[in-house]
């Protein structure tokens, strides 16, 4: 190039150079950084109020449930349920028709009871019945 003092006569070509394949590397470097950035943004979103509130509410509910389970006395409930059951059975036994219960006995047992009745009616020895 001709040495000149007039800038308009300078060749406007780029005097700086870059390493080989620099621009394709630059592109992938930028892409890599923005991908990382997106995952960071995703993590930041997890920390937003919209997420924190339901998470805190869930934790609060879990704590209440945990506290309830920890302080729960299973005996008191069992005693209560046993009492209710006994009362119910007693009531049913008092009011139920025996004939109705026979319906639920297997045929053999029912037959067996017929035998016993027959033996009792005919003054059979009780020891013999038991055997």
């Amino acid at each position, binding site marked *: *190039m*001709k*040495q*000149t*003092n*007039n*800038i308009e006569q*300078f*060749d*406007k070509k*780029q*005097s*700086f*150079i*870059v*390493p080989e394949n*620099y*621009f394709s590397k*630059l*592109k992938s*470097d*930028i*892409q890599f*950084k*923005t991908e990382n*950035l997106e995952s960071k943004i995703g993590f930041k979103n997890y920390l937003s109020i919209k997420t924190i509130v339901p998470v805190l509410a869930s934790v609060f509910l879990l704590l209440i449930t945990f506290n309830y389970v920890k302080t729960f006395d299973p005996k008191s409930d069992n005693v209560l349920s046993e009492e209710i059951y006994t009362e119910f059975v007693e009531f049913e036994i008092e009011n139920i028709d025996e004939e109705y219960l026979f319906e639920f006995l297997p045929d053999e047992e029912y037959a067996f009871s017929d035998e016993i009745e027959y033996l009792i009616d005919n003054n059979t020895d009780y020891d013999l019945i038991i055997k």
Partner: protein
Amino acid sequence: MKKYTDHDLLIMFKSIEKKNYAFNYIINLYQERIYWHIRKILISHEDSNDVTQNTFIKVFENLIKFKGESKIYTWIYKIATNESLSFLKKNRKYFFESIDNVSSSLITNLTSENYFDGNEGEKKLQKAILTLPIKQRLTFNMKYFDNMKYKQISQILGTSVGALKANYHHAKNKIQKYLKEN
């Protein structure tokens, strides 16, 4: 490569599926021009590489908020200029030192720069440019090397067209004076 308008790119960037495609398209389109703009300000390749990457990360973060008041290219140019100036401010020797006084360290960078392919005359021209105050230097680079219009430079630097014309005129005179004297 298919051509997209700024409007198309902005719409694509807002959609989750096409966001990366739009951004890669923008990188392909502008990375070289933006790099060279930054390189002329910072001189060093390594510094320019860092600042170019930061510029595009800023673009990625903020493009969703871009309202299309200017061209995407002008907007990216503005980010690149601001990032470069911030870099120069951060790398000043003294906290209160003016950004215009960093020219000596930039001239040192230019002489030690491995990636400079120009002859002595071109090196002298670069040195002359580096002696200019920063605004004149930016105006001169954008007008002289990038053939940008004053209106576009005005949008990037936030300076009136008249002031830019004056900047360019003074810059040209100073450079010619430097070339004569050195």
